[in-house]
């Protein structure tokens, strides 16, 4: 199209626009993500100062190793939640990949082949989810509860009572190795690369923009040329792929393949993602928050274990973190509104219509 002369704009002078409505500090510090990061820092400092032997490279190493599977699964699950869907089947996909690797390896397939097959198995889970959710447009909550059972069932079915353990030692030690002389696990390099890749993908690519648009207004997205089916399909494939990779990592980290491996991991993943500020209704959330959320849960668990609390207290703490992270902002809004109402006495602003629409799972 050739350049258009705008009569309308010619009549009044050019306008200028601020880039941001709020100053930098308010945009960065008064956010959910900043609160979580702050919590991580505060908890680390207090723990390091008050718990003997806590502040060691070993603590860091263990913390990072423990959160690695959760973190890797949380990355694509973040994107899925941002796009307005959910994936409860990640842990089953991890387990499925783990079992396929063990099974094929035990059947004599070379380890490289087994790993490849394991990753593809994870991808298969993503493919099934993607087809059912994106193409057939079935509710992802129900679909992934179904695939959670299906692929866990297949895993248990394949290995039965067996537990495969004789994996190559080099791979096992690689999965557990630290950068020499530090408490920094080698695998964290892969995790860091994944974090950066996902952060760039979500925040700095057209695809990322499509993901947000899909989650916030799927109709507007479609009217803007976003292939929402393809976007969702891709996200579930990514989730399957990462779960497949985590399955391989898991195999060598623990040197074990069995039907019940990684069971229940999905709740830890969802908890970390939600704690990191990702909305269950789609359209909101950032990778940095999720990384911090997963780390915060891992850190709190690690501290409580150090204080010899057992898993009951730890679970209460994790559940409490979750509830608090959603309830406190809402309670805060409710209180400020009540205060505002009391001030204006006769009239209040209309209760947000949107919140009525968004009420859901």
């Amino acid at each position, binding site marked *: 199209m050739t350049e258009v002369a705008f009569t309308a704009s010619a009549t009044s002078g050019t306008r200028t626009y601020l880039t941001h409505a709020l100053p930098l500090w308010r945009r960065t510090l008064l956010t959910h993500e900043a609160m979580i990061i702050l919590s991580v820092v505060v908890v680390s400092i207090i723990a390091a100062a008050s718990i003997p*032997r*806590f502040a*060691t490279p*070993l*603590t860091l190493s*263990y913390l990072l190793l*423990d959160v690695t599977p959760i973190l890797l699964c949380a990355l694509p699950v973040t994107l899925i939640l941002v796009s307005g869907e959910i994936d409860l089947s990640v842990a089953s996909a991890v387990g499925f990949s783990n079992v396929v690797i063990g099974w094929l390896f035990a059947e004599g397939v070379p380890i490289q082949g087994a790993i490849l097959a394991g990753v593809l198995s994870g991808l298969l889970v993503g493919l099934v989810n993607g087809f059912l959710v994106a193409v057939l447009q079935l509710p992802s909550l129900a679909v992934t509860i179904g695939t959670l059972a299906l692929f866990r069932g297949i895993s248990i079915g394949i290995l*039965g*009572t*067996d*537990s495969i*353990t004789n994996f190559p030692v080099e791979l*096992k*030690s690689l999965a*557990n190795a630290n950068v020499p002389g530090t408490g920094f696990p080698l695998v964290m390099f892969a995790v860091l690369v994944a974090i950066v890749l996902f952060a760039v993908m979500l925040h700095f690519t057209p695809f990322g923009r499509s993901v947000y648009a899909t989650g916030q207004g799927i109709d507007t997205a479609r009217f803007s040329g976003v292939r929402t089916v393809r976007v969702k399909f891709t996200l579930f494939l990514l989730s399957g792929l990462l779960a497949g990779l985590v399955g391989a990592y*898991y195999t060598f*980290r*623990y*040197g*074990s393949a*069995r039907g*019940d*491996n*990684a*069971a*229940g991991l999905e709740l830890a993943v969802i908890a970390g993602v939600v704690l990191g500020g990702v909305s269950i209704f789609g359209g909101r959330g950032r990778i940095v928050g999720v990384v911090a959320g997963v780390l915060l849960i891992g850190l709190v*668990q*690690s501290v409580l*274990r*150090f204080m*010899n609390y*057992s*898993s*009951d207290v730890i*679970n209460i703490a994790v559940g409490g973190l979750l509830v608090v992270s959603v309830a406190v902002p809402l309670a805060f809004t409710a209180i400020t509104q009540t205060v505002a109402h009391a001030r204006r006495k006769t009239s209040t602003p209309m209760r947000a219509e949107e919140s009525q629409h968004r009420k859901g799972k």
Partner: protein
Amino acid sequence: AAGSSSSDQGTTALSVGYVPKMLANPYFDQAGVGAEEAVKELNGDYVAVGPQVGAADAQVPFINTLAQQGRNGIILSASDPSALGQALTTAREAGTKVVTFDSDVEPEYRDLFVSPVPDMSLSKAMVDVMIEQIGEEGKIAILGASPNAKNQNAWISGIEKDIADSHPGIEIVEKFYGNDDDQESFDKTAAALQKTPGLSGIISTSTVGTASAARYISSSSFAGNVALTGIGMPNATKAYLEDGTIKKFVLFDPADMGRVGAYAIRALLDGDITGKAGDTFTAGDLGEYTVEEGGIVQAGEPIVFDLENIDQYNF
């Protein structure tokens, strides 16, 4: 003998972490009682930590934390033979002695394994009690705990071997697993009994399973027709001895494993033993123990419980 002389030479204080497969399980609680008593006798510091449910990776963080806390001994019943390998290796590199009990890990990951009883003798005891009831002829089923635990598999294959070797008239027609879970064991027993008519008996290698299976059988029409035995916790199984569902069952005292484990750690720390075959150490009142091939110590012998002797035990 060697152990007692070196324990007062001002060596480091004992600090033991006890890690069962899962907390809140009477069997492991009883083993913990033994471990705690022994640690106290040795003037040590004791803590019991662990997951709520048994899963391969669930114990790893607890072992890691114990190592970080600088504890010098871990008494562990492993949920998986290899999943804990890295955690245990790191702990041992930092000077922590690792003694497994009840359920072992691969030998390279621990210093010593305390077996409750020789596997074969326990299997034999279970088979013998069953034969006493049903005679040398009949179909039986086996109710196991978790399909992946090493000791379970050892006991079950012991039963299979004993039957194959010495009781040709007995046929094992079914094996099922209740995962040490009341509900699952109960429901699976119901399903198994329906699925295989003509069953003469069930041997349960899961203490939880024995009580659950007894509870199902006693309330069903199979009561009196299907013999049940296996290993069981005296308190939980007593009621079924009394109502006749179970005539006799087998176990050992889990506390012995804990006690032996604690003394073994002391001996390992003091350098009295290294875990190789032939090493000997004294475990308080229990007397002297010898390390067998593969770094195994047998804590005791099977006990057969019946209405006569049941009241002597409380765990």
